[in-house]
């Protein structure tokens, strides 16, 4: 769209990036053991932003994105386990993978590529579907990926955890990854393709009437978000020893809930939702081991974190179904608006 001032491009990027960078800076102030929570949160931000690119812009629910996170994690993991240790954790690994070894950055790029290819291949048939059929079909993709990765020991550790993958995802790498995801998501959302896809979300018939191909736009968004999900998976496997069940149902539900709690139709919502739920979760996990707040000593029984998170998520969805941000992007205060608001 011509005539949109540069300022509003920056504006939409400003909020999410500032939040991510702020969280990362906050993470540098705390002890190393607490820092892990911040790093983990930033990886979750990357995943939720990846979800937003497809779900937020298309309005179609996908339960399958965690399979692209898993693909990314598997790619980066298999290629960075030191060759000497491969036979120990992956005894049945295919021959051509046994001696391949790449560096940290290359593995992340390949993770993104794997996620993107996976999403593209899956998307070719699946993007014809909408509504519940699309939701269930993407769920089926998650089930199939989980099932195959669990038992295909030629391409990964199967049921074992990805131990001895170099732990290169510190606070800095997670922050850079999250910012990359946010920037890609913002650029995509602002592009002609992002706008067309949102048009199909708002009124499929009208968008079709002006020549937008719902199928192609959805496929593109699915591929882009698959790339980002793959990247996030790469970051994840470099953070902790990922195991097949850590990239399955729980992560799917949690990240989806974060997206909807934040406000699914905006990038800011994705980031806010991920940060808010993770902050609460991290704080509660710390409190389960005993902590003090405003001079009160708190020691929650273990298992409370999940319960409180569940209650909070349900409460937000019931009280404010459009999410914490109402699905809007950040707007700096300005003079009375003369043109209609976009998105």
């Amino acid at each position, binding site marked *: 769209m011509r005539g949109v001032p540069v300022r509003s491009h920056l504006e939409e990027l400003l909020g999410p990036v500032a939040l991510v960078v702020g969280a990362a800076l906050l993470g540098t102030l705390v002890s190393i053991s607490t820092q892990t929570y911040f790093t983990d949160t930033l990886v979750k931000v990357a995943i939720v932003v990846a979800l937003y690119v497809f779900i937020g812009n298309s309005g179609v629910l996908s339960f399958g994105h965690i399979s692209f996170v898993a693909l990314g994690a598997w790619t980066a993991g298999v290629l960075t386990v030191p060759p000497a240790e491969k036979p120990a954790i992956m005894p049945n690994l295919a021959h051509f993978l046994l001696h391949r070894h790449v560096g940290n950055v290359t593995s992340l790029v390949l993770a993104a590529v794997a996620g993107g290819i996976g999403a593209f291949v899956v998307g070719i048939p699946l993007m014809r*579907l909408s509504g*519940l059929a699309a939701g*269930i079909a993407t769920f089926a993709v998650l089930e199939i990926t989980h099932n195959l990765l669990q038992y295909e020991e030629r391409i990964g550790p199967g049921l074992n955890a990805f131990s001895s993958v170099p732990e290169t995802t510190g606070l800095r790498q997670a922050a850079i990854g999250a910012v990359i995801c946010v920037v890609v998501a913002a650029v995509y959302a602002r592009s002609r393709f992002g706008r067309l896809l949102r048009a199909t979300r708002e009124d499929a018939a009208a968008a079709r009437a002006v020549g937008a191909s719902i199928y192609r736009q959805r496929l593109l968004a699915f591929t882009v978000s698959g790339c980002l999900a793959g990247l996030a998976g790469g970051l994840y496997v470099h953070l902790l020893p990922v195991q097949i069940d850590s990239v399955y149902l729980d992560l799917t*539900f949690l990240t*989806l809930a974060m997206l*909807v709690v934040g406000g699914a139709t905006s990038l800011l919502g994705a980031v806010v939702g991920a940060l808010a739920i993770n902050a609460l979760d991290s704080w509660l996990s710390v409190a389960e081991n005993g902590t003090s707040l405003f001079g009160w000593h708190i020691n929650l029984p273990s298992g409370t974190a999940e319960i409180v998170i569940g209650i909070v998520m*349900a409460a937000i969805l*019931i009280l404010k179904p459009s999410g914490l941000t109402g699905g809007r992007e950040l707007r700096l205060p300005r003079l009375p608006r003369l043109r209609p608001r976009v998105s």
Partner: protein
Amino acid sequence: MTLSILNISWQTLADGLELGAIYALMAVGIGLVFGVLRLVNFAYGQLVMAGGFALALASQWGWPVWAGIVLCFAVVLALSIAMDVLVFRPLRGHSPAVMLVATFAVAFLLQSIALLWFGSLGKIATSLAFLNRPWAISGVDIRKIAIVAVAVAIVCLLLLQLLLERTSIGLHMRAASMDFATSRMLGVRASRVISFAVLLSGALAAVVAVMLTVQSPLVTPDFALRDTIVVLAGVVVGGLNRLVPATLGGFAIGFATGVLGGALPTNQSQYLPTFVFAAVIVVLLVRPRGLFDFRRTVERV
């Protein structure tokens, strides 16, 4: 004795029928609520899980079987009502995505509570274990539960059919699931219909809990979670908009899972979810409106 052509034993066939019957009941439970609320209740599996824990506790306390079943019904119905009042009502009329994700949150919450109370190892429900013993019918051994499950499912579905066709509340429910707004204008009480549907769906969850605990007596916090996912897939494959196709879809996926699980050789049966869900994708691509939905409607602007 086997069906030699397909290499399927009668027990496998019975397992398929049993799982199909149980899944058909779950499908009806999910379909009833979807009909009036347009809400896919993902937390349905957790209702079954709660019922399972009620049965396990009852058998741990040494209660007689009937008391355990009563407790199971009481717990599941109370939980259904609470879910209706606290979650479904406030969310009525919101977008399907928000409602679905809200039921995720509820499912997650209930699972966490179960984890806190009962631990991840779960409890064992033993009081109905005698139903697991085989019954010899003309030389073929079939576990009693398979027969019981099929019989119970048929009775439940017939009763439900009577209720929907012959009572005024059933008429109201059918009207409401056809067109909620219009039926309200014609005097159908919205909240009464919804509460009734939720209660019916809860009662079916309790029945399912009883039968699933016989089939797999170990009740863990993620009990029935996988079954819910499979049933949801089956329901959508069958056609969620109407009850009969949804039920058929649930039965079909249960039957397919049960038979394939028994018929595949061990080195392939670990890939059972892949086969089942690949079939789900194929059916959805060929018939996105549902396998058993034969009406022809064209979306108009």
